């Protein structure tokens, strides 16, 4: 009986964990993409101070979320985002516009990909 209860608890925890993880990844992706869009918008309106402020917010938000994401995703994926954020910071302080645009695109893809790694899909299973 105790074994059955234990297995049931494990089942519930596993199922609950799946839902929570999926929700957290979705939230993170959404929040980070939204901040990135704000950075992009602010940069194209040539508001340097505002851009700097939003970028800092984006980086802080990312660092906070990375503490949990590190236990959910392969560390390589997080390292890629850290590097791209540093690259973006560099480009924002005076870089090639084409490269900057590419960096925005890449970060957007990496943030979107946070949910895709573990998304329930045919491609992810097979």
């Amino acid at each position: 009986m105790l074994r059955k209860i234990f297995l049931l608890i494990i089942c519930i925890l596993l199922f609950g964990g799946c839902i929570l993880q999926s929700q957290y990844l979705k939230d993170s992706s959404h929040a980070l993409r939204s901040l990135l869009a704000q950075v992009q918008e602010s940069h194209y309106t040539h508001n340097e101070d505002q851009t700097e402020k939003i970028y800092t917010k984006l980086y802080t938000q990312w660092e906070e979320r990375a503490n949990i994401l590190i236990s959910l995703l392969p560390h390589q994926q997080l390292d890629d985002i850290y590097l791209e954020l540093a690259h973006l910071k560099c480009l924002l302080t005076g870089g090639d516009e084409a490269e900057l645009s590419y960096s925005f695109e890449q970060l957007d893809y990496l943030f979107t990909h946070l949910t895709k790694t573990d998304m329930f899909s045919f491609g992810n299973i097979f």
Partner: protein
Amino acid sequence: MINIILKTALIYIILFLTMRIMGQKQAGQLQPYEIVITLLIAEVAATPMDNPGTPFIYGLVPSITLLLLYALINYVCLKSKTMRLFLCGKPSILIHNGKLLYDEIKKNGYSLNDLMEQLRMSGQTDISSIHYAVLETNGQLSVLPYASEAPLTPKQMKVHVSDPSFYSAVLLDGQFNTSGLANLNTDKDKLQKFIINLGYRSIREILLLTLSDNGEIFLQDKFGKTYTAQLKKGYFNA
């Protein structure tokens, strides 16, 4: 490096618990689906240990999933005969009436060398004396000799034999063994007094003391001296 050590220790604990939940079967007694799950658990659990960049849950979740799958298959096998046959297979008779059933042996991919080895292990090398040899679903060979070749039992000989006593270790390495004491409802004080009366200064001098439910006692002290006696049944009872 501390992370690897911690991860390894945690994975060991989880694997250990998983195996405990799976039961106490030995490797040779596992069914095919159990072997697959055991191998897989060992493999997936090792992933975070091998690669420091892989989160712990990448080993934990697959292990737990496999455990749940195991419990589910076990349940299905218990409830459905068809599923049991499908997942575990059915026993095959390899020897019948002292004759090898070669077709069955071939069908099971069993070599004659393996068969002879198993027969030697079961102590039956004379095939003509075997009534049945059954290859069980877990890979073990059950050998049933003809009644005329089987050892006689006391019942067949109409001899009265008493049932073996249940022995429990009540003192282990100078300390009381709580579960052993509880098994036979033994009183600690009575036992301690008995040991002092035997000339020992304390129970610390005793290496092992076993008691049976019929009052048989075996004692060995740390100096190598042994003592056996038959006491009254329930002598040390609380």
